[in-house]
């Protein structure tokens, strides 16, 4: 496979918390633009793997290349810069700043990257419109419904068109219909921007939205769909 088509290339990744191993030699690749569901029971290592892939944690061993950068050797500062510019994250509970409006939350990544408010505002607003929450864009994040907040969180994660969007149980707090809408929006927009999506979930119905499925247990990859095409 042409390496330029790979956005994630992890080889024999290890991670321990003290004496407790969390990842025991995990290898995986993700092609540019594909969506991958990462499944596993509680304590299987799926969130640890996600945090390594997203540059939040540095693995103890192995090689890890994400969006063209070697995360296993980058400094903390360089990993932070990569997260800001090339990666996006969505969590189960949105993690928006409650004192800011939805619009201000979505503008934030662009402003941190040096874009002026006058340019960031229409981009953020357009994305909120695509996610059908433009009408509540001036409301504080702490005052909107869970579904609205989560759609704004998706907008915030995608507004800078990241190479990879990481989502950790992004619809865990939503009912099925809201979850379907959020996922349709998330994956549809990611497809348009060519972003690779890695989505952690323990729900099969959520995983079924993705192109490919990976399963992890006890820190080891136990099954996965082959990369095709």
């Amino acid at each position, binding site marked *: 496979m042409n390496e330029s088509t790979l956005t994630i290339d992890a080889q024999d990744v290890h991670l321990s918390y003290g004496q407790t191993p969390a990842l025991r030699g995990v290898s995986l690749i993700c092609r540019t633009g594909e969506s991958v569901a990462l499944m596993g*029971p509680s304590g299987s290592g799926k969130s640890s793997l996600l945090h390594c892939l997203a540059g939040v944690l540095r693995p103890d061993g192995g090689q890890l290349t994400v969006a063209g950068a070697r995360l296993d050797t980058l400094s903390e500062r360089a990993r932070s810069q990569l997260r800001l510019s090339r990666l996006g994250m969505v969590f189960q509970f949105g993690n928006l700043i409650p004192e800011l409006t939805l619009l201000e939350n979505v503008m934030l990544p662009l402003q941190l990257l040096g874009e002026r408010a006058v340019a960031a505002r229409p981009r953020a607003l357009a994305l909120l419109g695509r996610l059908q929450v433009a009408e509540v864009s001036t409301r504080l994040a702490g005052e909107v419904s869970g579904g609205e907040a989560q759609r704004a969180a998706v907008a915030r994660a995608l507004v800078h068109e990241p190479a990879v969007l990481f989502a950790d149980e992004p619809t865990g707090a939503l009912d099925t219909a809201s979850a*379907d809408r959020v996922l*349709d929006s998330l994956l549809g927009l990611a497809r348009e921007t060519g972003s690779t999506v890695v989505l952690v979930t323990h*729900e*099969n*119905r959520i*995983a*079924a*939205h993705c192109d490919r*499925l990976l399963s992890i247990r006890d820190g080891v990859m136990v*099954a996965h769909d082959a990369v095709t095409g």
Partner: protein
Amino acid sequence: MSTSQALLALLEVEPAHGYTLKHRYDKRFAGATPIAFGQVYAALSRFEQQGLASVSEVESGSHPERKRYEITPDGVTRIDEWVASAERPTLYSASALYAKVSVALMSGRPADKVLERQRDVHMVRMRQLTEQRRTASVAGLLAITFELNHLDADLRWIDEAGQQLGQLRSDTGSTR
């Protein structure tokens, strides 16, 4: 779902020839498995014998004779009773997958492979339905979410069974 009752219920909506009825059934109920013409004509013949439907029109000409069927009052009563009655919960023993896993455990065959293969097939179908859901009509959505939820329940059982295989082996007397 009872195929016969579903066919009769479609006649209640509108009288139909066997050919039309087959296509209406496939569109509404069949999902990935269309009903055979023979099954439709056999059901219509049975409805007629049982007084649940009658022939309202016979078209003859260059083509083979075509009968148009309509539901009778007894047929409507049959549908009333069917819709009003709850389905008997399906027993584990009636599930082909449960039976396969049990046989695999009893005979020392790899039960985990049975589960894995079924999981893959279920996930493929789940992906298809998830994709279809995006453009489905309201009626189509009803059928899709019905199937999705059943697949989801199966997958939960597959996952739990996979985690409990050691205990299941000892319960069923497998030596492997």
